[in-house]
């Protein structure tokens, strides 16, 4: 078995007395789509926040590409290819769609201060703009490249959020509920896009409540409850696990 691209070991994060994440362990294999599910408040978003450096772990560690990155700054993690998206729609609402993605290109469009002023950064900026347009085409947003992001319908905003994240050249992308608020058609389209992302060689970690999407997409699923790992396995194994069914308290996880 290859070395996992991402691993969390005995990860804990408390807020005051509340143990939002408690002794959590899992490993994500490269080029897989790895699901992270669990009831509301299980600690999924907190886990993402700790992995991506928004919160420091209370204890335990996060290992990325064999390197302990616990407590590393978000922007540094992004530089080395660990990118996350947000549960709520998070965009530069005041920017045009294309400028949102151009900001996403921050990593690949680095240039010195003087070349910025003198315009000698043209080469990197042209490349960034091309990449941004390519990503908009990938998500079917080309037509509205110059619209303000705030004017987009919800589904397009979620897609744009992923485009911004992909512009940052992730090796692994953490998607926090990418399908919320989407109708079944949009969800099906986005699922196909997530598969395409993986085909680009990017590892995907996915938090999602839409069980049909999770079961359809993921190679491995980690189920969390009360901050800890409850079960881990293939979609079929997880779907039929009585502990999982109990955690969801009768919520038919394979209904939909």
């Amino acid at each position, binding site marked *: 078995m290859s070395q996992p691209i991402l691993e969390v070991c005995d990860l804990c994060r408390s807020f005051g007395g509340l143990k939002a994440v408690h002794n959590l362990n899992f490993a994500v294999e490269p080029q897989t789509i790895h699901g992270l599910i669990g009831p509301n408040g299980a600690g999924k978003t907190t886990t993402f926040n700790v992995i*991506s450096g*928004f919160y420091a772990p209370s204890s335990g560690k996060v290992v990325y590409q064999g390197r302990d990155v616990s407590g590393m*700054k*978000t*922007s*540094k993690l*992004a*530089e080395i290819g660990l*990118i*996350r*998206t*947000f549960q709520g729609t*998070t*965009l*530069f*609402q*005041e*920017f*045009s769609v294309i*400028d949102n993605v*151009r*900001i*996403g290109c*921050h*990593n690949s*469009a680095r*240039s010195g*201060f003087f070349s*910025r*002023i*003198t*315009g000698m*950064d*043209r080469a990197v*900026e*042209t490349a960034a*703009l091309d990449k941004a347009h390519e990503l908009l085409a990938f998500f079917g947003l080309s037509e509205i490249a*110059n619209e303000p992001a705030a004017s987009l319908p919800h589904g397009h905003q979620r897609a744009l959020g992923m485009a*911004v*994240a992909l*512009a*940052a050249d992730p090796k692994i992308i953490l998607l926090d509920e990418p399908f919320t608020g989407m109708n079944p058609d949009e969800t099906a389209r986005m699922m196909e896009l997530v598969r395409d992302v993986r085909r680009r060689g990017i590892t995907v970690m996915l938090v999602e409540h839409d069980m049909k999407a999770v079961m359809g997409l993921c190679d491995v699923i980690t189920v969390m409850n009360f901050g800890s790992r409850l079960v881990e396995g293939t979609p079929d194994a997880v779907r039929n696990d009585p502990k999982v069914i109990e955690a969801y308290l009768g919520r038919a996880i394979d209904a939909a």
Partner: protein
Amino acid sequence: MREDISKISKWGLGLVFLAALLVLPQVLSYSQREIAVLLVINVLLVASYRLMTLTGEWSLGHVVIMGVGAYASALFAKRLGVPVPVSMFLGASTAGLAAAVLSFPLFRMKGFYFLIGSFAAGEVIRLVWKYFSTPFGGPKGIKLIPGFPDIGPISMFEPENYYYLCLAVVSLSLFILYRIEQSRIGLTFHAIHWQDKLAESVGVGTFRYRMLAFVLASFFAGLSGALYAHYIGTINPTRFDVEEMVFVLIWAIVGGTNTFFGPIIGVVALTIINEIILRSLGFDSARPMIYGALLILSVLFLPKGLEGVVQKAGRIFKARKAPEPTVRREQNA
């Protein structure tokens, strides 16, 4: 094609404007020329302030930072005998350095706390000036600051000539500030303002960029302070107190901070109102009151500032000439 025409008309407008700036001293009286010099210096001060506000943080220490540039340049020239043009650059750099150091405590805070923190930092700097007679001269400040050296037969003591010097320095500075704003650096400042978490998540070091904005703004504020010090010849802590800062805020707010030119329009308009109208009517001492009233009026009736009025006028003018939807915002390639 249409863009070509609008480009040509833009350049044309720019040239007319430049010509007006160049002949301006010729139509002004001696004392009005002195005011014109200070106005040009204040344009740089308020334009540099806008750069700072792009990241969303409003500082109350900007005028003190201007003072850091003024004090440093004055001391380099007077105490160490550094030639004034060089000392001005060193003064501006000192202001930038001060901002770099202040970034560490100040950018732990945001919004209102940053505002208060920047005010406190400014007051500490002013206390240092007041307290240490050497080298800062205490409450009386520094007098007999060397002037800008004459260039051949051209005396820089003459307001008219110093006006041209300031015009050149400030134009170059504004050009640099404008280029910064139009580049990815400016876009990133905006991004940090609107969604710093998202910016972080794609690799933007928000602290570094906030610091960069602060340092750059402070460099140019310091430069404006240096231009001021070597013109007036005397500086003291009171010159850089919070009342002066309030004027900068009013210029920026009345002018509007959404565009590069808003704050500049603000300082020019208010200076004209102040100097030409108030002074000639003998209302000079009522300046703070009139400024306050103008601020309230503009907040109530011009939420986008004077720049909004100019834009609207421009749109109406354009709509008459060419009934076409507005072209999208220019991108830097």
